[in-house]
């Protein structure tokens, strides 16, 4: 192709004064943006394939590199923005569906940023989390409709299986295939240390993760990859994946060339065969069918594992959540449309689904109205960027939150959103051995632990300010929230008052 219809996106700026020509960038860039000049000594950069992952910038020992946005103006047009024009050119070139990684970068409203938290003043005391106990332990699982006790006060109700988390933060599903084994291992080690759970995704269980299965959530997805009795029984929670926030209504397709020996073993499919996750579960066409699958899993696990149903946040999410709860799900996870992905069709990712804030609020309200909220657990997913987002989600009605992008960023992800290329320079979203080894689980799990520990401290601090000493008292406590700059309708759906009210 002689004409390049799409200008490059970034420019690598090399400060010749600072560059010592050590060649670290040359050997680190999987997009081959740096190379040695003909003299084999001077390092030069060409920016055509730069994705701004910052691998070279962060490793450069002298700080000689900088990534700049490549500014190439188009004639101003609010409708035909450069992005649409470029996407058209890309499709004109390939004839294919546009693919992207990570969550949508589009400028949809982030309601977390339009919700403010409360604090205690005079009429009720705030609590100092450094001096007084502060409970963030979270228990997931179906609770009995009501408690009956015998004379001595002992419960006579048989308690369904419960899962104890030391923090309301869990790691969301990322399969072996979409992320590297080392990344999964880091999350598993972090989950073990933090007393929370990691989700192994739909790609089956790699034998190396066997020691961490007691901290795992295993998925049963439409492809049923790697599902067998041990897989279900060694887990803490079994999750039926109906949909994913980034691509609701869409299945998955892992091309045969990516199905290596290890992937084929974990997924239990022949090596080199395409791994297709159908869009629907072919045995689930109704709530009744879902009920059957839940029942089957409970039989297979001898009623010892809570069963979670994960759905994407779509328009009638409240009714769907209610249906899942009635179908016997112990936990329902709702994944908002800003949630991440290893690869999704760009149009789906950027246009399908609704924000988690609204979905969570309406689902919680619906379950309360139906009187079943106290019996099941709600897990919110879809882009939690800081501890305040978590606190707001819990106050909107979530029992726990699924986080994935944040721990990935802790492990080096720079949101370059090219996960789908398989060339992740940080060793996260790739299976290439020379790249995956860049992620040393022994280092990275500590960073993830640090992150969540920091968030835990912050959650306790925020709760203390509100005068709340237990996460249970925060849950669904929408009085602690106020909207800012929101319309009547938005406030109604969120079930919160406007700031100042």
């Amino acid at each position, binding site marked *: 192709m002689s004409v390049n219809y799409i200008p490059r996106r970034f420019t690598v700026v090399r400060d010749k004064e*600072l560059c*010592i020509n*050590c*060649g*670290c960038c040359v*050997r*680190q860039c999987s997009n081959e943006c740096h190379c040695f000049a003909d003299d084999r000594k001077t390092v030069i950069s060409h920016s055509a394939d730069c994705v701004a992952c910052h691998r070279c910038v962060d*490793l450069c*020992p*002298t700080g000689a590199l900088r990534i700049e946005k490549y500014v190439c103006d188009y004639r101003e047009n609010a409708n035909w923005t450069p992005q649409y024009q470029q996407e058209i050119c890309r499709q004109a070139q390939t004839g294919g569906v546009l693919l992207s990684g990570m969550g949508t970068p589009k400028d949809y409203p982030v309601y977390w940023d339009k919700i403010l938290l409360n604090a205690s003043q005079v009429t009720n005391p705030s609590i100092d989390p450094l001096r007084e106990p502060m409970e963030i332990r979270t228990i997931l699982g179906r609770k009995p409709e009501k408690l009956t006790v015998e004379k001595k006060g002992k419960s006579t109700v048989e308690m369904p299986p419960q899962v104890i988390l030391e923090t309301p933060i869990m790691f969301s599903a990322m399969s072996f295939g979409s992320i590297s084994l080392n990344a999964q291992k880091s999350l598993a080690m972090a989950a073990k240390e933090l007393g929370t759970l990691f989700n192994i995704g739909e790609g089956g269980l790699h034998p190396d993760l066997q020691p961490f299965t007691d901290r795992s959530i295993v998925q049963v997805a439409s492809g049923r990859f790697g599902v067998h009795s041990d897989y279900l029984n060694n887990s803490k929670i079994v999750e039926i994946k109906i949909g994913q926030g980034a691509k609701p209504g869409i299945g998955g397709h892992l091309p045969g060339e990516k199905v290596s020996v290890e992937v084929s073993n974990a997924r239990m499919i022949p090596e080199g065969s395409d791994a297709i996750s159908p869009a629907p579960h072919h045995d689930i066409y109704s709530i009744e069918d879902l009920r059957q699958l839940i029942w089957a899993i409970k039989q297979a696990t001898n009623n010892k594992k809570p069963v979670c149903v994960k759905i994407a946040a779509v328009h009638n999410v409240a009714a769907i959540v209610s249906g899942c709860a009635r179908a016997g799900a112990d936990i329902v996870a709702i994944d908002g449309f800003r949630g991440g992905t290893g690869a999704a069709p760009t149009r789906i990712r950027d246009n399908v689904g609704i924000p988690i804030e609204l979905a969570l609020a309406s689902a919680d309200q619906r379950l309360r109205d139906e009187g079943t909220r106290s019996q099941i657990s709600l897990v919110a997913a879809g882009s939690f960027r800081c501890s305040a987002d978590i606190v707001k989600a819990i106050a909107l009605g979530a029992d726990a939150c699924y986080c994935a992008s944040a721990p990935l960023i802790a492990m080096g992800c720079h949101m370059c959103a090219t996960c789908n290329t398989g060339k992740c320079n940080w060793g996260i979203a790739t299976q290439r*051995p*020379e790249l995956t*080894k*860049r992620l*040393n689980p*022994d*280092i990275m799990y500590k960073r993830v632990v640090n992150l969540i520990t920091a968030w835990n401290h912050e959650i306790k601090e925020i709760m203390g300010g509100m005068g709340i000493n237990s996460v249970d008292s925060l849950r669904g406590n929408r009085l602690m929230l106020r909207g800012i700059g929101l319309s009547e309708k938005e406030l109604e759906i969120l079930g919160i008052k406007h700031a100042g009210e």
Partner: protein
Amino acid sequence: MKRIYAIEELCLNCRLCEVHCKTAHSLSKDVFKANKYEEPTPESRVTVYGNNFASAALNCRHCDDPKCVKACITGAMTKDKTTGIVYVNENKCIGCMTCLAVCPYGCIKQGKAAVKCDLCRNENEPACVKNCPNHALIYVDKGGEEK
């Protein structure tokens, strides 16, 4: 004694160990000056061999019974009795490189005097280990215990 060991499976081939080794053994101790302007250019004591798929940094093993010390014709190469570090006295070394010819690990480089790892003698942790971004170099006792 504590020694530097390389873990091939974790080595990224970034060769930052070499950069930081040079810096640590330079006059200026400054990463720009040491690698760009200093004359003579300091030599790196550690060398990364291999490619992006399999690489490893090679450092002096500070053997218990070092062949280089036995082969040294000037007494410049010695093993410190208390620390166990094998190092070169650059004033005594005449650069004959007999040590290089007998080191079975290939850890000695030629220069005006022999160039080899001295475990950054005055530091708690050698520069290469301190600056390895993936902990592919570890500084441990023979038993594998850290510090």
